[in-house]
């Protein structure tokens, strides 16, 4: 089966600093994959390369077999890849609903239809009560949910989540995990998530890729990875919930 | 046309360009450190020019002699502007700060119009018609003195930033705002100081420029635009770049005015601006913005 998202020997440097080096992994359709590793391992850089924010120095990125490396971010989104930002970027002057409508416009040609779909997503993410509030008035956990809602509204085939669990209370996190499981099961939505919160990683992912200093040091099922000595080594001293 | 004419015009442009460069230096300092786009820059220079004219017509004081006091007055103006007007709004969106200074510029230009009227005014010094003969070149004495004064002030400024403690503190602020705060520098006061210094630059440039041109209030916006073109061409945040840009623009303007009609010479300035913005936005000596 063709992987939905595939990175092949991707490298990216910034002024001589090798952020990502010869990284290869893939996400199958409907699969949930976690990308973990210590800070500075190159995880967000991978996201940015996939999303088209950076152009890889070497290697290829394929979406369902088609090469998308070198595409602009908006082209990548229209092809079916949605992403959230680690430092959330809400449209502060717009309301929650309006924020999500912007996302929904990606696949809905008319505003009416986009508003309808946006309303659904807003409810799913538990932001219904605040739908007419300006995004600037939301708390950080709520902004993270808005970020997810917006990305979800674009109707993606794969969702790139960048540390969305950080700062959430355990119940909120459980709700998010349940939501993603549900979307994955019902819609076949593939997910690639960067996470530090191991509880969420273990609960969601079927496959884990571990990055360290820009290279893949391990990949496999959660059980395999958490027993891998190299992984334990690089995480010694790092958190693990 | 004989080569001498081109050379004369080019040298003349170079000397004028040095004064332009001094003016732009002030803007570069302000933007490089405080990160404020001083849209009232040219207007501040025009204030200095009118001050020089007023002092000259009242007391026959040579503008070059009055350079330091006028610069001091502008320093005070800049200091107060930064402290009172800009500092409180330092966290506002960029275009908000910009409009603030647009408003100030509007008030300054029209204030000058009200006080001094729209007619052109000039300063005629004793040496206004002298010239030096250097080989095939005939150079206006005023232009030579102007260029020399500009270079002297610029040198003083470089020395200040290189060798004094305050100068280094200011450079620290520019390089790393948070770091400067952490080591205990009073950033707000240093910002005010910097704006004052930039204003003093422009004050000096103004009292020098008064020897070279007729002064009318609309010069304000024209010089503001020119300062931006120079700073962008030479490189935002680069002090040598400002001088280099000034000289470049001065020469281009002068030659352009010679080859085409004099009134069209600023069109070349704009052409250069567009080209720089498109193809080398960091300017000739600037670094790419992080």
């Amino acid at each position: 089966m063709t992987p939905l998202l595939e990175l092949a020997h991707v490298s990216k440097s910034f002024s001589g600093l090798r952020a990502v080096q010869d990284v290869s992994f893939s996400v199958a359709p409907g699969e949930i994959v976690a990308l973990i590793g210590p800070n500075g391992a190159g995880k967000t850089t991978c996201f940015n390369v996939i999303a088209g924010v950076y152009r890889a120095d070497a290697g290829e990125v394929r979406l369902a077999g088609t090469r998308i490396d070198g595409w602009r971010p908006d082209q990548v989104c229209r092809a079916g890849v949605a992403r959230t930002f680690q430092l959330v970027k809400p449209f502060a002057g717009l309301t929650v609903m309006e924020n999500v409508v912007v996302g929904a416009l990606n696949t809905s040609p008319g505003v009416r239809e986009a508003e309808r779909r946006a309303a659904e997503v807003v409810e799913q993410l538990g932001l219904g009560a605040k739908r007419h509030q300006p995004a600037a008035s939301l708390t950080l956990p709520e902004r993270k949910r808005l970020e997810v809602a917006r990305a979800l509204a674009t109707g993606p085939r794969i969702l790139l989540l960048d540390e969305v669990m950080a700062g959430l209370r355990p119940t909120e996190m459980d709700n998010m995990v349940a939501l993603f499981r549900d979307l994955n099961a019902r819609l076949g939505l593939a997910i690639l998530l960067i996470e530090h919160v191991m509880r969420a990683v273990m609960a969601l992912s079927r496959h884990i890729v571990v990055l360290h200093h820009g290279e893949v040091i391990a990949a496999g099922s959660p059980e395999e990875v958490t027993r891998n000595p190299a992984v334990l080594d690089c995480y010694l001293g790092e958190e693990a919930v | 046309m004989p080569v001498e004419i081109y050379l004369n015009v080019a040298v003349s442009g170079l000397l004028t360009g040095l004064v332009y460069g001094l003016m732009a230096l002030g803007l570069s300092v302000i933007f490089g450190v405080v990160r404020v786009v001083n849209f009232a820059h040219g207007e501040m220079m025009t204030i200095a020019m009118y001050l020089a004219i007023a002092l000259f017509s009242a007391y026959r004081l040579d503008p070059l002699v009055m350079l330091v006091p006028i610069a001091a007055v502008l320093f005070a103006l800049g200091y107060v502007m930064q402290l009172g007007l800009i500092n409180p709004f330092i966290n506002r969106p960029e275009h908000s700060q910009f409009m603030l200074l647009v408003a100030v510029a509007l008030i300054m230009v029209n204030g000058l119009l009200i006080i001094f009227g729209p007619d052109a005014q000039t300063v005629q010094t004793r040496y206004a018609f002298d010239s030096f003969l250097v080989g095939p070149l005939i150079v206006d004495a005023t232009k030579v003195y102007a260029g020399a004064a500009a270079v002297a002030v610029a040198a003083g400024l470089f020395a200040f930033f290189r060798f004094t403690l305050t100068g280094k503190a200011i450079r620290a602020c520019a390089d790393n705002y948070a770091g400067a705060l952490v080591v205990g520098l009073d950033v707000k006061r240093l910002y005010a100081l910097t704006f004052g210094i930039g204003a003093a630059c422009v004050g000096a440039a103004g009292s020098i420029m008064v020897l070279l041109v007729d002064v009318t209030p609309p010069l304000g916006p024209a010089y503001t635009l020119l300062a931006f073109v120079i700073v962008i061409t030479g490189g935002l945040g680069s002090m040598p770049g400002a001088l280099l840009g000034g000289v470049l623009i001065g020469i281009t303007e002068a030659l352009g005015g010679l080859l085409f009609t004099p009134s069209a010479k600023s069109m070349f300035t704009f052409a250069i601006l567009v080209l720089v913005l498109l193809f080398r936005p960091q300017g000739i000596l600037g670094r790419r913005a992080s």
Partner: protein
Amino acid sequence: MKIGLTEGLPRRGPALLAALLVLLLLAPLVANDYLITVLVLILYFAYVGQAWNIMMGFAGQLSLGHALYVGLGAYTSAALYVHFGISPWLGLLAAMAIAAAAGAVIGFLAFRFGVAGVYFAILTIAFAEFARIGFDHWRWLGGSGGFFLPVANYTRNDLLSLRGSPTMFYYLALAMTAGAFVLCHALLRSGVGYRWQAIRESPEAAQALGIDIFRYRMYAVVLSAAMTSLGGVLFAFYYNNLFPEQVFHISRSIELILGPIIGGIGTLFGPIIGAFLLTALAETLGEAMRAFGIDIPGVKQVFYGFCLLLVVMFLPEGVWPPLARRLGLERRLPAGPGRAGAEP
């Protein structure tokens, strides 16, 4: 559920709007000639302010050279009329086309090469100045000496050639302003409007959501330029003389943005309120000073400067949003998809 023009507004909203419209329609019956000329000026600024607002308030691009489009519109329609006898109603099509092309060039250069923010503003100033100097040397269009439209003594209004009394121009300007208002309202709620606001708020996030920011920024610039040029057509046929030094001057560019900034960038009513406030206050000030025998050039501009300063410092949203909240004109929507916030 699509939001209609008046849906969600408290009942006063549309009622007030209708009342205002009726008032404006009837104004010439009670106003003297002087007042009508002031009103024409107000409506002109309200109109071009709205056109500028599309670029800044909706798409977030600061243009300080909008006088370029006014001038292009004015000169194009005037030249076609004087040199070829073409009616301004046809001429305005050419005017819009030329202004749109100019906007497209500026937009393309800016957005393709990543010129944004303050640099973009300076670029727009440079183009306007370029035009000012260029037109100063263009003999066929009168050069610095000016371009004049024939002012014949008319006893009736000639709408086809836009020759007529101030009252005729008043209704034209009113129609333009009202039309722009309706257009902006429709745009804000359209897909294009949502995308523009997204780009304004966060270009990065907008891109990540599938928005081609180059294309939509271009739309904003071209539309804004074309709309502004219509203001130029009105300008040319109303004043009957054009001088590059005045028409393209940076003071014109700044004048026409004062209304939207003081009234409220990004709002529908801001440019209108701003234009009204500024012009009304300035004229009152002028009258008061003339009464005392003072007639100094520059006082009006200083006044504008202080207004701008005060608004930027203390009313960053502009005058309209707090006023709207005070008047209870905030839009309140029922449950379900919809929008909220200070409106219009």
